[in-house]
């Protein structure tokens, strides 16, 4: 236990470089840490602050990883040992526990206070809300306290998130909890998909990480296309809903110039035209980009036949460079339990294929690019469609089955 209630633990050591970060109007994490040390006498936090000051002086980091965990799990605790424990013995251990928040990062204060009370008992008192993957990170606990701390959190219904070669903690936008753009129940999908994969969250059994993000609409506020192996994005098939009276009210308030310059000419597929001083949408040209709906949220809204698009293969830098996810399922209804099970079935097959095919540390997007998208689609049991590509191949080198005969419709 790192807490020392006596006043000796409340004394701050000099941190002149870090003190420079107490200046300026944005909230200062350094001021927050110092307040907490003086408040609590938490010596682990003081040691961490002292080591951070040393990092600022020497421009080097001083943490190394190791293995710390809880019974039965193989992930969820990120271990950190100081490389210079003789210099900063108070910061000898500084492990992080990744906690899975509820979808959409919604909290009741009662549930959040449970975490804070337990964390005050066992940990450094530092948290990150939230990490880039979407975990609530409890930063700073020693190895001997991890299990007890986790047990208490777990009794309150909190569980660890993923780390390493696991399905990682999911992320989602605010969704139907508050947003009129949400085209499916993104929070429910997040809850169900991540619950289904709980075993893969807690026990590393995959070639590398697998991330899920859920966005209610193509505005993609959870950054799923850029960051997620599996991007579940709400969309619709039928026509954009238009409230004619609200369109008129919009034009009356903003003017025709604004409508032309900020709505009609900004449509990426020129699907909107000016008709008799108002707007018409040619829905067969619409690509569901959301722009006109964003500008006119009272007048326009997504259509009624709603579902999701699934894009697969988004990822960051390592190993072959950034990849954006690409369409693997253009449209799937996600309304019933059966729909949800169908989606999970498909993703299960994708993960199985990837687990068989991938090299060590290869994300599914990289694996698809190396092995081939058609092989992937066949393994996932998906039909190829033109929605999956920006355009047919322009590379002249291709091969097809010798007996392939195109079925050409008569258009006469």
């Amino acid at each position, binding site marked *: 236990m790192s807490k020392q209630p006596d006043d000796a633990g409340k004394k701050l050591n000099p941190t002149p470089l870090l003190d420079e970060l107490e200046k300026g109007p944005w909230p*200062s994490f350094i001021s927050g840490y110092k307040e907490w040390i003086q408040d609590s006498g938490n010596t682990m936090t003081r040691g961490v602050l002292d080591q951070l000051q040393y990092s600022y002086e020497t421009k080097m980091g001083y943490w190394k990883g190791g293995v710390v965990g809880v019974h039965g799990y193989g992930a969820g605790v990120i271990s950190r040992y100081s490389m210079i424990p003789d210099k900063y013995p108070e910061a000898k251990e500084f492990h992080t526990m990744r906690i899975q928040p509820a979808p959409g990062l919604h909290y009741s204060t009662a549930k959040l206070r449970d975490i804070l009370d337990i964390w005050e008992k066992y940990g450094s008192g530092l948290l990150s809300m939230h990490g880039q993957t979407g975990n609530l990170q409890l930063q700073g606990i020693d190895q001997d306290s991890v299990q007890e701390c986790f047990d208490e959190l777990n009794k309150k219904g909190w569980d660890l998130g993923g780390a390493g070669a696991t399905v990682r903690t999911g992320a989602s936008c605010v969704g139907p909890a508050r947003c009129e753009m949400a085209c499916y129940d993104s929070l429910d999908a997040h809850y169900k998909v991540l619950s289904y994969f709980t075993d893969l969250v807690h026990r590393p059994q995959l070639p590398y990480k697998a991330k899920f993000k859920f966005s209610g609409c*193509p505005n993609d506020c959870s950054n799923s296309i850029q960051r997620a192996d599996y991007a579940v994005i709400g969309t619709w098939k039928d026509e954009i809903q238009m409230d004619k009276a609200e369109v008129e009210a919009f034009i009356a308030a903003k003017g025709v110039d604004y409508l032309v310059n900020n709505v009609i000419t900004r449509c990426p597929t020129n699907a909107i035209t000016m008709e008799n001083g108002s707007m018409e949408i040619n829905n067969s040209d619409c690509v569901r980009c959301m722009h006109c709906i964003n500008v006119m949220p009272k007048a326009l809204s997504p259509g009624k036949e709603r579902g999701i698009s699934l894009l697969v293969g988004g990822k960051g830098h*390592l190993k072959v460079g950034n990849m954006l996810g690409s369409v693997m399922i253009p449209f799937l209804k996600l309304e019933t339990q059966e729909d949800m099970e169908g989606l999970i079935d498909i993703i299960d097959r994708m993960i199985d294929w990837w687990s068989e095919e991938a090299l060590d540390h290869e994300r599914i997007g990289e694996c698809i690019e190396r092995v081939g998208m058609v092989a992937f689609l066949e393994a996932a049991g998906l039909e190829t469609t033109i929605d999956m590509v920006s355009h047919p191949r322009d590379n002249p080198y291709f091969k097809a089955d010798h007996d392939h005969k195109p079925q050409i419709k008569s258009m006469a």
Partner: protein
Amino acid sequence: MEKRTYKTEESGLHHHMEMLHPVSQKNYGQWSYHERPGPGILKHVAKSGDVLFTVRAGTHRQVTIPIVRRLCDLADKYADGHLRWTIRNNVEFMTPNEANVAPLIKELEALGHPVGGTGPSVSAIAHTQGWLHCDIPATDASGVAKSVMDALYDDFVKEEMPNRVRLATSCCEINCGGQADLAIVVQHTRPPRINHSILKDICEMPSTVARCPVAAIRPTTVNGKASLMVVEEKCIYCGACFGACPAMEINHPDHSKFAVWVGGKNSNARSKPSNMRLVCHGLDNNPPRWPEVTQVVKNILGAYKAGGRDWERLGEWIDRIGWKRFFEETGLPFDKYMIDSYRHARTSFNQSAHIRF
């Protein structure tokens, strides 16, 4: 520790319904439209006629128990005991009671939380852990984020940008901060120094070799011990090997620098999502305030704010005015290192006679 008797309930994540504000629960999936009454404030109207105000405020992200308890106190007082976070570390309070909005904002500001980050503003920086907690960082992330947000404070609390601006920082080239309209990412400028004395004992050599994107790492023998070598002409200084093997020491107090990337876009609105592009590199890693980085950020966002049209994201503004004018208007020099030399490089060449004079 006494013998453990508790059996883990592998419960996974909490269900969202138990976390949602009652008005959110009642009108779940039944929202009609929203308005932005002012910076940091959203007003959502449900089909039932119910109204839900949201107040959004910036945080330190790296927070403490008392900081979060104070936010919980505000949520209890003004938001019926509920709060949420955005993916850019902003905290949000929801209330159906319009009269709660002004006093809540006042109390947030008194606690030092800037209210803003909505609509066409600069939202808080998505950032990584850095020297505070990461095992492979070349810089701090929270410090860079704090320094840059101090300089962009006004752009957070006002809605005066052409469209929303998403920022990220990352403390190694793995770039956990992710794609953004503008990202500040560590850039190494030398191959790793190899600590041969410990390599064999702490690293799995085949997986370290496999981690390299350009196959620059080879097995070798040093002083009779198996080790690895780096073909320096091939090495692209990415530091990928360091994550697999701490003996591949990529970080350096002087040779690890910063690069700035622009034009990443997550949304599908108008143009397709895009990756960001390199526009500045070789900036010193200069704690505690990184003034060189802040200046580049200010130059870029200043030019975008002045020249961007309504709804244009930073990358879309550049698409319209062209990269030549981008470099002119931001005062940044284009150089040969910004011409891609990796996979698919040709897709970034100008394969047309479209030239701006």
